């Protein structure tokens, strides 16, 4: 497969690992904030290739993990309404809410359908005019534009029974909050596909205000190793900056059209991130112009009171403050087949990934 296989070259990976080893002189911690990076790092066994000095930690880059339990509770409540069809990405289906999850509701008869794209959800809405079709919009700047495109399409085509329940968030506030809170990191492996949309400008504050570098990385093992090397070089030379390793996919200005569509449909709002609390202007809310497709505005529902399970330290794990093994529930009460916290649910949540490659 072109543009994939070449970046999986074992020899190049080995050489990059050697360069990293030669260049690094002190222990450093690099944080990645992208679920896709967590997956790749785990899938290729990258930590085993790195010298001891380089520690990779996983940040709040998994949209499933940072989605509040209340969001799931509300989605569960929607799914229990007779005239509602829930359409969702597969990632969300097993995330535990206060007392249930979407896959349990599905087992109990709720109409919950996994889709690959908001366009599939629009088709469901077209074919089921008497039902309200709610699409669960999770994801960061990579995914939000497709939600924006979907909403615009719904409005233009008059698909009045289609709604988005937005949990979309944007990365930079989380990246800055982590440093403000004193999480010890020496650099960021920047999210690759978020950046194809946003470009590099959104990260400029990180070196300017905090003196930390950001290297926007691709997802193949060569990309990751190269990005780690670039960060190590920045740190050793004391030259923090925003660099793009993933030049074949990330333009400095990003995808301007996608940015315009985002701006057309969404506005910023303060949003609650699991593990980080409320972050200013970190969430995307549907603008009034498109309110007829906003599930939160149009569909009222009773949501059960929030119950956060005792002992779950997903929050600390998401901030890189604790490791999964520090959690009393890890591997005993909380396992991938029966998760308590969201970090254990999706394969790229820190706890699930740790469970898989570190036991």
């Amino acid at each position, binding site marked *: 497969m072109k543009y994939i296989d070449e970046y999986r070259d074992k020899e190049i990976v080995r050489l990059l690992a050697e360069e990293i080893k030669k260049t690094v002189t002190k222990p450093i911690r690099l944080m990645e904030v992208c679920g896709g990076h967590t997956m790749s790092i785990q899938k290729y066994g990258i930590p085993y290739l790195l010298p001891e000095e380089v520690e990779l930690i996983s940040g709040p880059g998994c949209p499933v993990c940072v989605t509040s339990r209340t969001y799931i509770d509300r989605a569960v409540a929607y799914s229990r309404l007779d005239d509602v069809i829930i359409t969702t990405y597969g990632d969300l289906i097993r995330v535990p809410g206060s007392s249930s999850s979407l896959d349990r509701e599905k087992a109990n008869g709720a109409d919950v359908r996994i889709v690959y794209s908001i366009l599939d959800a629009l088709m469901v809405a077209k074919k089921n005019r008497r039902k309200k079709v709610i699409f669960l919009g999770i994801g960061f700047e990579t995914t939000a*534009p497709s939600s924006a*495109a979907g909403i615009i399409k719904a409005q233009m085509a008059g698909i009045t029974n289609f709604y988005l329940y937005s949990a979309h968030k944007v990365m930079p506030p989380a990246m800055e909050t982590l440093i403000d809170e004193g999480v010890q990191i020496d650099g960021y492996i920047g999210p690759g596909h978020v950046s194809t949309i946003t470009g590099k400008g959104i990260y400029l504050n990180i070196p300017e205000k905090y003196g930390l570098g950001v290297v926007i990385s691709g997802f193949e093992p060569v990309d990751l190793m190269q990005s780690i090397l670039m960060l190590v070089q920045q740190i050793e030379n004391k030259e923090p900056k925003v660099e793009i390793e993933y*030049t074949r996919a990330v333009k400095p200005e990003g995808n301007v059209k996608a940015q315009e569509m985002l701006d057309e449909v969404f506005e910023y709002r303060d949003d609650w991130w699991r593990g980080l609390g409320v972050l200013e202007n970190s969430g995307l809310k549907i603008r009034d112009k498109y309110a007829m497709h906003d599930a939160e505005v149009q569909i009222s529902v009773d949501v059960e009171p929030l119950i956060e399970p005792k002992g779950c330290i997903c929050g600390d794990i998401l901030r890189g403050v604790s490791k999964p093994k520090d959690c009393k529930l890890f591997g005993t009460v909380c396992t991938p087949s029966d998760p308590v916290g969201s970090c254990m649910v999706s394969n790229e949540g820190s706890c699930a990934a740790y469970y898989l490659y570190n036991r």
Partner: protein
Amino acid sequence: MCLSIPARIDKIEELTAVCTVGTTSYQASLELLKDEQVEVGDYVLIHTGFAIQKLDAAEAEASLKTFEEFKALNNRMDTEEQKTDTRLI
């Protein structure tokens, strides 16, 4: 949020492209690349049913070339080291 892979555009019909990864094809919307010059033969990143960015072939070639040179240099140095039995770095 990040699962997206490079796919080759085999056919374009208005704002929909038939893209291939290996021998698997997928219909993706070109809505987000409306303002870009996109042609059959181009590679795009597909994510959740949309093409989100066009791959820059020149940049890819450049980066791969750098890696190949890196490999070649290393091979030359390995050979040198073996011949002279000394470490070069």
